[in-house]
C-alpha cells in the first residue's frame, strides 16, 4: 500500500513537472502556429534567474517569483526583435528559435563555467503519510501546476483578452478587421508563453540543479507532448504532456529504464499514427 502510494505520488509529481514545462510551449505553438525551439532555453533562463537571486544572497522564492516576469520581458523583447519576422515562415521560425536556443544555452554554460549548481528548495521538509515520504517541494509543484493550468484555462476562455487571443489565432485577417491588434496579441501571447517557461524553470531547478543542458531534455519531451496532444487547442498539449510525463515516470517501475525510454516514444508514435491530428485536434480552446 505504502509502495503504491509512493509510486503514485512520484509519477504524478513528474507528470506535473512535464505539464508545467509544456504549458508555455503548447500555448505558443497553438496560439501562434510556431514551434519555439528555444523553449527549453527559456526554462533554463527561468532557472538561471532563480540562481542569480540566490547567488546575490536573496531568498530563493523571490527569484522564483521574479523569473516569470524576467522571462516575459525577455520574451517580449525577442518577439519584437526576431520572432515576429518568423510568423509567415514556420520552418524558418524553427531554425531561428533553435539558433536562439543555442546562443542562450552556450551563454549560460559560459556564465556558470559549464558546471552543475545546486539551488536549495524553499521547502525542504517532507510530509510523512503512513510510511511514505512526500517531499513538500514536490507537493508545492503539483499544487502550483494545477493553479497555473486552471488560471491559463480561465484566461483563455473567460476573459476578453482570451477571446481576442483565440480570434487572432482562428482568423487573423478578420480579427484585424474587427479592430484587434494581432501584432500586440502575438507579442503578449509570446511573452505569456515565455513567462510560463520561466516559472517552470524556476520551480524545477531545486530538483534537477542548474546546468546548461537543463532545457534540452524537456524540449524533446515537450515536443512529443505537443505532437501527441495536437496543435491548435489549449487542452491538447496539456493532455499530451500529462500522458508523456506519467508514462516516462511510470514505465521504469515496470520495465528496464532503457527500454522504457524507447517505449515512451513508440507509444506516442502509435497514438499519433491513429490520431494524426493529435489527441484533441478540434475544439474551441
Amino acid at each position, binding site marked *: 500500500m505504502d509502495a503504491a502510494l509512493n509510486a503514485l505520488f512520484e509519477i504524478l509529481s513528474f507528470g506535473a513537472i512535464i505539464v508545467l514545462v509544456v504549458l508555455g510551449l503548447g500555448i505558443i505553438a497553438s496560439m501562434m502556429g510556431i514551434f519555439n525551439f528555444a523553449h527549453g532555453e527559456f526554462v533554463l533562463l527561468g532557472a538561471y534567474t532563480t540562481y542569480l537571486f540566490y547567488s546575490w544572497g536573496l531568498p530563493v522564492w523571490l527569484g522564483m517569483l521574479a523569473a516569470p516576469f524576467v522571462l516575459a520581458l525577455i520574451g517580449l523583447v525577442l518577439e519584437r526583435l526576431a520572432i515576429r519576422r518568423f510568423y509567415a515562415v514556420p520552418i524558418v521560425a524553427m531554425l531561428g528559435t533553435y539558433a536562439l536556443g543555442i546562443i542562450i544555452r552556450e551563454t549560460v554554460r559560459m556564465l556558470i563555467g559549464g*558546471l552543475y549548481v545546486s539551488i536549495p528548495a524553499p521547502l525542504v521538509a517532507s510530509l510523512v503519510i503512513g510510511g511514505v515520504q512526500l517531499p513538500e517541494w514536490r507537493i508545492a509543484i503539483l499544487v502550483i501546476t494545477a493553479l497555473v493550468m486552471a488560471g491559463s484555462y480561465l484566461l483563455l476562455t473567460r476573459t476578453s483578452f482570451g477571446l481576442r487571443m483565440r480570434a487572432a489565432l482562428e482568423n487573423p485577417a478578420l480579427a484585424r478587421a474587427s479592430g484587434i491588434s494581432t501584432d500586440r496579441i502575438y507579442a503578449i501571447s509570446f511573452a505569456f508563453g515565455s513567462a510560463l517557461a520561466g516559472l517552470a524553470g524556476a520551480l524545477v531547478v531545486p530538483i534537477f540543479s542548474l546546468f546548461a543542458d537543463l532545457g534540452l531534455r524537456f524540449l524533446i519531451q515537450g515536443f512529443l507532448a505537443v505532437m501527441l496532444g495536437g496543435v491548435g487547442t489549449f487542452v491538447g498539449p496539456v493532455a499530451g504532456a500529462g500522458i508523456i510525463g506519467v508514462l516516462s515516470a511510470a514505465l*521504469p517501475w515496470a520495465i528496464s529504464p*532503457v527500454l522504457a525510454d524507447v517505449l515512451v516514444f513508440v507509444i506516442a508514435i502509435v497514438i499519433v499514427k491513429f490520431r494524426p491530428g493529435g489527441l484533441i485536434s478540434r475544439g474551441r480552446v
Partner: protein
Amino acid sequence: MGDKPRQSSCAAALSRRRFLQSTAWTAGAVATGIGSWVIPAPWANAAAPPIKVGIATDLTGAIGYAGNADANVARMLVKDINAAGGVIGRPLELYIEDTASNESVAVPNVQKLIQRDHVDVVLGGITSSMRNAIKDTIVKRGKTLYIYPQLYEGKECESYIYCTGPTPAQQCDEFIPWLIKNGGKRFAFPSANYIWPHVLNAYARKVVEASGGEVVFEEYYPLDQIDYSATVSKIMNEKIDVVFNTVIPPGVGPFFKQLYEAGFSKRGGRLSCVYYDENTLNINEPYEIEGLASCLDYFRAVDKTDPVSARIQAEYEKEFPGKILLAAGSAATGMYRGIKLWAAAVTEAKSVKREEVAAALDHAKISEAPGGPAEMVPGHRHCKMRMYIAVAKGGNYEIEWKSEGLLDPKEC
C-alpha cells in the same frame, strides 16, 4: 491577410541570403582553425627547434569544465618546463585543439594536430568514446604517441597508447572492501548506459563478491534520465547498504536528491561514486550527499599532508583563478602525470622519435605530481599511482584512507 505575409517572405528571402553569406563565412573560419590555440616556444633556434606538444581536449560543450582544466594544466607545465630550459635543450611549443565534447567535431581537429602541425605527442580525450574516436587518427594513421589522462574502464591495450588515469583495479580493489566495512554488504549498481559503467561494474562486481558482499541489482539508465523514483524505491525496499553509483550528470543530481529525500542516508546507507571530485560536489546541497565516498588519485584535502600537491595546487590557482579546478575527475591530474612522464621519457631517450620515446616511456617515473609520485608499469602502458578514499563532509572531502605505496593498475 493584408500585406504582412509578403513583407515577411521578403524579409525571409533576405535573411536566407544573409544566412548563406554568414554560413560561408563561418565555414571558412572553421576550416582555417577556430578552436585552435598555439602557444609558441619562448625561444628557438636552428640547433634547437621547438618540440611540439599537442593537446586535444573538450574546451567547449558538455564537459568543457574538465577540458579547460586539462588545457590549463598543460599550459602551466609547459611554461614551467620552458622556464627550466626545456627538454633536451629544446623548448616546448603547445598546440591546443578543441574536441568540443563531440566526436565528429573532434576527429578533424585532431587531424589538424597530426597533419598540419606535425606534433610529436598528443595528450587528451576525456570520455572513452572520445578516446576511441581519435586514437586511430593519432596512433595508426598519424604514427604519433598518444597519452590518455582520464580515469576509465581499462582494457586499452594498443601499442603507443599510454594511460595515466586510474583503472578499475586502482579504484575498486581497496575501495570496495572499505565500503563493505563502512557501509554494508548489500550493493546496488545504478548506472548510466554506456561503456564505462558497464565495464567498471563487471570488475566491481567481482571485487564485491570476492570480498563477501553481494550485488542486489545492477541497472542501466538512459544518459539523460532525470527522474529516478523507481530506482530509489527499489534501493529502499531491497534494504541496500551501499549505492555504488555510475549515473553521470545531469541525472546524478536529482538521483542523489531523491535518494536523500527517501531517507537512504538517514537509514545508514552509504553513497559511493568513483568519479566524484571537487567539481561534482556542487551538484547537490552538502547535506544531500553527506557521507558520500569516492576513491581517486587526488583530492584537495591531500594538500594538508602532502606539500608537493599543495605547491602544485597553489601554483595552478595563482595562474588560473576561478571556477576551472585542478581536480582528479576532470583528468587534470592524469594530464599532469602524462606531460611529466612524457618529458622524463624524452629526456632519457634524448630524442622525440616515437619508437625511442615509447621505449623510455615504458618505464618512466616521476617523483612529483598531484597526489604523489607515479611510474609506468613496464610493458603495460598504464600508470602506478597513490590512491585515496575520501568522504564528503559538509561540502568538503576528508581523507579516510591512503594507499601505502603506489597501487598497480593491473591492466594489459
